[in-house]
């Protein structure tokens, strides 16, 4: 048989090379019918009978090559009486025929009437057939064993697939994935599962057990070694069959030394049938014949096949193969047994194929259910949806979606540019600026308008009142702290006040901590004809320098470095009657009030600042820390100031209109964006 195994067979249908023992083509499934062709067996499977052998011998005698014409004619007329004339004639032909043929003819003439020659040939044929049959049986057993191994491998694969598809609790894989996708229906799924678990449990039990049992029981039909087990099993239930079989075993059946627990299933997959287990419905091994078959109406189509299988096994148990005592019927029985074994192996393969088909159907159903679940899910936030080539969990899908979004945004700008150039906004800004310039220029060119008698604000009135009280000889410390950008406004406010003080005979002392103010402050200096100070002193260190000169004291060992550059040093505020801060920064005013003024609480402080600082330094005037301040456009006398007042009003009017239009436009834009957001939502 090893030679047979090495040989290959070509499928007549598709030309596929198959193993010698293959029953079907592995490619097209074509049945290879001429597998078992033995010597002395016709193509139909009919073994030659003794009559056919005698016919052959008769035809051999009638052959022209072996017999002459005269002998044939005499033998037809007088077969039983020897003729002397014939013997002479034969002796004359003896030189032409071989010796062995002559002996055969003599033996035929002696024994042919009684048929001894034929019987001897039949006995020899029987003896030879018995030896060949034993070899055929062995070869057949090996073929069947290989078929079983192949079927076991396929069953093992399907079992692994089943174990992978079902978890510990018996929940199928597709159901667990659907639950992960729909946690809200988990409770319902659990309820369904509680009902289906029992079914699945019975399904798995009966399926596996019945498959193994069916395979083992059917194999007993043609496997003599396992037939003993079958006989023992059936003898316990049917004593009549057991008696018949015990006689047949000793006489007709050949004995093979196969272990009782012989099986072709691998050890890791083979489960010993546990007789201690309680009898389950559909388990034919422990099934009582008197019991009714289990009810399987509630089970699915997969389970419906189980009672059929159980019924088949039960029928096999009830109607075991009928072994006959007569020896003449033995070849036919063996022939039928071979056919039966082949048909049973086909049944196994068919069952395996059906089981595989069922698994495929289950898988297709689960895939269809997954597709329905996916279709029922809402699309993700973005328009493009992740193509579910694989079944993904929710977090995995979210991550995939995030990754998709990142890939989509690749190359796009995610951080807005602060100063993005917009042609429209640039044009609008230009128009606004030109409009403002035009308004201001026209108001300046048209010349002075009517005299404006604008009332002074309360802080400005307080400042005017405070300066008016100064007398000749008083010293006013003027602290300069402004920049060139605001010099026009500052100078416009401070110049009249300082001129008025100069005319009052008040001594002005200009100090600054800003280098720029050393030459900007020159515009504030009173005219030389007044004869007052025109020097601006620089105080290094900013506010800290002022604090040093205000709060510090001269040490005994000499002068500090700052006292070297500032005249009078630490006595800067000692002889001062009033402090006037001229600054465009409200912070400087506040810092002065916080750091310097507390050291001289009785020293009044005035401030001249820009309109920007007006709102911020007003609380200090309300609290009394500032005696008065002058900020913003104060109005005043003179043509230029009146013209500037008109230009200032025009500019403010234009800006107010622009602000109102801007607010309206912005409100409309926000409303449009909000509507778009609602539409998108």
């Amino acid at each position: 048989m090893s030679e047979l195994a090495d040989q290959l067979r070509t499928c007549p249908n598709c030309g596929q090379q198959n193993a010698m023992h293959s029953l079907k083509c592995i490619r097209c499934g074509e049945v290879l019918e001429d597998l078992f062709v033995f010597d002395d067996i016709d193509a139909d499977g009919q073994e030659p009978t003794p009559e056919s052998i005698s016919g052959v011998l008769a035809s051999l005698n009638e052959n022209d090559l072996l017999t002459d014409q005269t002998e044939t004619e005499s033998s037809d007329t007088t077969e039983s009486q020897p003729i002397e004339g014939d013997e002479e004639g034969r002796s004359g032909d003896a030189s032409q025929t071989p010796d062995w043929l002559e002996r055969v003819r003599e033996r035929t003439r002696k024994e042919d009437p009684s048929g001894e020659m034929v019987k001897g040939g039949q006995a020899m044929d029987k003896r030879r057939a018995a030896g060949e049959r034993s070899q055929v049986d062995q070869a057949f057993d090996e073929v069947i064993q290989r078929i079983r191994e192949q079927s076991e491998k396929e069953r093992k694969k399907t079992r692994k697939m089943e174990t992978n598809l079902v978890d510990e609790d018996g929940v199928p894989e597709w159901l667990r994935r659907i639950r992960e996708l729909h946690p809200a229906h988990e409770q319902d799924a659990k309820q369904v599962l509680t009902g289906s678990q029992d079914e699945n449990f019975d399904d798995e039990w009966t399926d596996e057990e019945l498959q193994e049992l069916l395979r083992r029981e059917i194999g007993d039909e043609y496997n003599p070694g396992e037939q003993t087990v079958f006989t023992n099993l059936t003898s316990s239930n049917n004593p009549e069959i057991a008696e018949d079989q015990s006689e047949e075993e000793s006489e007709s059946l050949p004995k093979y030394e196969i272990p009782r627990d012989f099986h072709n299933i691998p050890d890791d997959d083979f489960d010993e049938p546990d007789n201690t287990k309680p009898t389950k419905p559909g388990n034919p091994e422990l099934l009582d014949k008197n019991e009714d078959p289990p009810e399987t109406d509630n089970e699915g189509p997969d389970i419906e096949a189980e009672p059929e299988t159980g019924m088949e096994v039960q029928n096999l148990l009830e109607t075991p193969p009928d072994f006959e005592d007569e020896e003449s019927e033995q070849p036919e029985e063996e022939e039928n047994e071979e056919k039966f074994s082949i048909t049973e192996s086909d049944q196994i393969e068919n069952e395996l194929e059906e089981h595989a088909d069922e698994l495929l159907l289950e898988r297709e159903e689960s895939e269809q259910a997954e597709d329905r679940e996916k279709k029922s899910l809402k699309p993700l936030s973005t328009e493009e949806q992740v193509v579910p080539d694989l079944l993904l969990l929710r977090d995995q899908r979210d991550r995939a979606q995030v990754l998709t979004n990142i890939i989509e945004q690749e190359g796009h700008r995610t951080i807005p540019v602060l100063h993005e150039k917009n042609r429209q906004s640039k044009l609008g800004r230009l128009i606004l600026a030109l409009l403002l310039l035009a308004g201001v220029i026209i108001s300046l060119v048209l010349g002075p308008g009517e005299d404006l008698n604008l009332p002074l604000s309360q802080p400005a009135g307080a400042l005017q009142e405070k300066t008016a009280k100064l007398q000749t000889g008083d010293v006013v410390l003027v602290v300069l702290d402004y920049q060139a950008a605001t010099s026009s406004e500052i100078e416009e406010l401070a110049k009249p006040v300082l001129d008025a003080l100069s005319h009052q005979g008040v001594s002005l002392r200009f100090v600054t901590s800003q280098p720029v103010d050393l030459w900007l402050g020159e515009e504030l200096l009173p005219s030389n004809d007044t004869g007052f100070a025109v020097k601006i002193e620089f105080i290094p260190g900013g506010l800290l320098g002022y604090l040093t000169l205000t709060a510090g004291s001269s040490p005994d060992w000499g002068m500090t470095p700052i006292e070297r550059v500032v005249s009078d040093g630490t006595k800067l505020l000692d002889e001062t009657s009033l402090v006037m801060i001229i600054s465009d920064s409200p912070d400087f005013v506040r810092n002065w009030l916080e750091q310097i003024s507390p050291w001289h609480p009785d020293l009044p402080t005035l401030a001249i600042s820009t309109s920007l600082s007006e709102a911020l330094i007003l609380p200090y005037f309300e609290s009394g820390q500032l005696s008065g301040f002058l900020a913003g456009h104060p109005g005043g006398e003179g043509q230029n100031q009146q013209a500037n007042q008109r230009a200032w009003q025009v500019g403010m009017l234009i800006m107010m209109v622009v602000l109102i239009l801007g607010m309206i436009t912005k409100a409309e834009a926000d409303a449009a964006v909000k509507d778009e957001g609602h539409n998108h939502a």
Partner: protein
Amino acid sequence: MPDLNLLLTLAGVVLSLMVFSYLLGDNLFFGIAMYLLAGVSAGYTAVVLVTRVIIPMMIMPLADFPQIPALLALVPILFSILLLSAMFTKSSKPAGLPLGFLAGLLAALSIAGIARGTLAPQLLSIVNSFDPQLVVSEGLPNWTAIFEAFMMLLGVIAVLFYFHHRSKTKNNLQSPDLWLDGFSGVGQVFIGITFGAVFVGLFGTALTALIASLNRIIDFVRLWL
């Protein structure tokens, strides 16, 4: 008008027009004007600091070495060297010493000055606004003063509560009552009014500067007409 003043006026007009050219976008003329302003200011500041600070306060006292003023002059010299070392070394630890000294000194002065110069006087101002002498005038209530005092008190409390409520909102702590949100909105209104006043002041300052520059240009043009 003298020739020098005429040239200076012409230079001023040209520089003003170069600055106004920014309305057409960031161009070369605007850049020249800005760089010229920054360069002149920095140069002038450097000259002032050298002539009026470094030489008289750091170099001159060293002539009296080893007297105390000379020794004291070594302290700013040492701090200056430490600050300059940051320009030539990767480590900023040496420069951290004078900077830390200044930062600590300013922080201490700021805290003391704010407490003494702003918080206490402003609180006293609010309390003083309810002074009976202010809210009663000639035996009759001065409703203007009373309204002003209450508005001041309401504004202070509402603004303080707005910042407190915003910190809670940042921490995702929902306010239990709606009136808290409403009161916080009142503080937001006061803050908006304040910022509006600041914006108006800023625009007024810029408008005044614009008027002054245009007035100079018009005067210069009238000079030639």
